[in-house]
């Protein structure tokens, strides 16, 4: 657990350095891939991915000043849209997922994640976030709905530069595929796993 904590702390520092702010909720249509990742200093990614906590916090930043803005992905029409959310503390990724499970705040936004879905665990190793949901998350949906549901989670988690892919689990076990169409999810999924999802 301490390693995950350390990585999350690194993330916090990274996001602090980005200087993100603004009132929540704030919604925007996305026109391109990873918004947050592009504004992060490359060095931060390396340090976080190695799992080594920085020995000294960068000067000028305070670990307690940890109110951050993160993007949470919902749907509108066939597209993914983002809502901004304020989070604090080291476990920003977990909090972003909790915000996702809570549903959209903006009228006209929707979520393909079934209401009542519970987050069971979220761990990070070597750039792969392993996220476990209860079985309700994996109930069947149509082609569009099931892809968007997974994409909402993958897009929300991969905004953090330390996360490149997401492995889905149910009660801690691997999930082979989703729905009666058989969308493959037996491997870590990336944004590239959803070529037909528009974000």
């Amino acid at each position: 657990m301490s390693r995950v904590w350390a990585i999350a702390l690194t993330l916090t520092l990274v996001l602090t350095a980005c200087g993100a702010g603004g009132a929540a909720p704030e919604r925007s249509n996305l026109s391109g891939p990873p918004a947050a990742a592009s504004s992060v200093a490359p060095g931060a990614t390396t340090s976080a991915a190695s799992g080594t906590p920085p020995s000294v916090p960068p000067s000028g930043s305070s670990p307690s000043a940890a109110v951050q803005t993160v993007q949470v992905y919902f749907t509108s029409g066939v597209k993914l849209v983002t809502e901004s959310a304020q989070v604090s503390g080291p476990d920003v990724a977990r909090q972003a997922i909790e915000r996702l499970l809570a549903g959209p705040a903006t009228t006209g936004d929707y979520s393909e994640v079934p209401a009542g879905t519970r987050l069971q665990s979220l761990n990070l190793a070597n750039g792969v976030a392993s996220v476990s949901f209860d079985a309700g998350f994996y109930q069947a949906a149509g082609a569009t709905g099931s892809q968007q549901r997974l994409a909402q989670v993958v897009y929300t988690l991969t905004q953090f530069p330390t996360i490149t892919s997401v492995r889905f689990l149910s009660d801690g076990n691997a999930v082979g595929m989703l729905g009666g169409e058989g969308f493959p999810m037996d491997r870590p999924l990336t944004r590239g796993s959803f070529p037909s999802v528009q974000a």
Partner: protein
Amino acid sequence: MVKSFTLALSAATACLISLSSLSAAAAMAASSVSGKTIVIDPGHGGRDPGAIANGVQEKTVTLPIGQDLASLLQGEGANVLMTRTSDVSLAPNGTQDQDLQARVQAAQQAHADAFVSIHANIAADPHVSGVTTFYGPACGYYSGVSLSATDVGRSFSLANKVDSAMVARTSEHDNGVQGVAYWVLGNPGIPAILVETAFLSNGGEAPKLADSAYQRLIADAIGDGLNSYFASGDATGTPPPPSGAMASCQGASPKDDQASQAAAPVVTWLQTTALTPLRSGTDATATTFATLAPNTYLKRISSSGNFLYVLNPATNGPGYVDASKVGPSGPPPPVPAEPPFQPFWVQNFVPTQLWSGANAAAVSFGPLPTWSYLQVVAPPNGSRLFVNVAGSTNVAYVDRAAVGPSGPPPAHQSAPPAAAPASIAPAAPAPIATPTATPAPAGSVTVAAGDTLSRIAAHYGTTVAALIAANHLPPDGSIQVGQQLVLPSPGTSAVTASPPTPDPAAAAPTTKTVTVAAGDTLSGIASRYGVSVQSLLDLNGLPSADLIKIGQTLKVST
């Protein structure tokens, strides 16, 4: 007329219903789906209702659309198989994986020309509407299969044509053609698409999907798309896959954490280590399709307990094998292309018959004049050769033992056949060891059991001394079975008989007249006189073989 195949998959049994094509010629206005085998897969079924919204279940919509499409395609002459014709799962006691795999297996076992999976969509946003058509990319499937560029290109073409036809017929919003590795689209060698016909979650589209007239309209649209695809060159050509559809194999969807760094092989090859049954399922009661010889190459698709689901590339047939009977292997070596058959000439040196077939039950067509020039036009078939008789349209079989090597017949008009061309040599005696595999050079003979030098000399109109001289044989003239002997050429040795020239009467056919009797058919007359039906039609100016009358006189070339 409903024939059912049984396909056991693990513990589950799936019935595939083959709907025989209608024989009525009326409806068949040259549809391009005619003669094609098309597998229709109504999505979901049984305990899997699929999407549910606005009081409509997906499985109850996909079935009638599939049935409408089946009748439509049958009427156009297609061979149609449906993965289900009632509200059932394809793996009633199995898993979702097995249900989906049974759908793929249906197409694989039918060697289908196309696979169409029919679905209805759902989205959280009730405003979302329209048609989406999916094709499969090269890889990324949970089943582990990978597709060739040709597979992807053809599926992409089919998806585009069906999507366009759907939008044209329904006027609904077009969400476009998308590549997603849905299980049922991982269908090697078979153009496969998944059509999301409309959104059940849309208040306007749900009632339409439940309406039988609209279901029929969707079936018509998919039928249009299939016809358009088979009418195009894409169905037999190699249309290009969309950009990115092949590249997605590496990195984008790694099988595991390490695979993103080290490019994992896309295909796993295995070889059988013993005689191995290829089964339809993973238990002892499953049907055995075939028994594979040791060292048979197999492409691994997925595993299920102690069994592996594999594709036999030699037959493109899938099935299950016991994992303990196979070992890792590299890919099979490329198969060298068989050299194309080269026609060659023979002549019959004894009177013989032409035969309608290669087997003993064949009908004979009356005697073939000796020294007829016969062009062997097909690879050897048992003891008979399939020949085209020079100067006629007769194509029939002749006994191998009656003919020997020859050059082509002399040209009739250009020069008088004063002397036979040097390339025409006397024919070899019977039996001929392997006249077709390696035809003996003109002017040579292979010694057969029982042959003596004097007999060969007599047969070819030469002398023992000339044969000994030409072949540097021992003075006693001893020869061995299988030995090749050069026949002395006419100019240099004591040949007493000239090589045969074609009988002018045989070369320039004459005709006789036949009166049609009760019970006669044109093919019967043709057979009796050793001529083809076509030659009778031509000679008598007849429009059709059906139109001869008793008492009618027919000219027959002899």
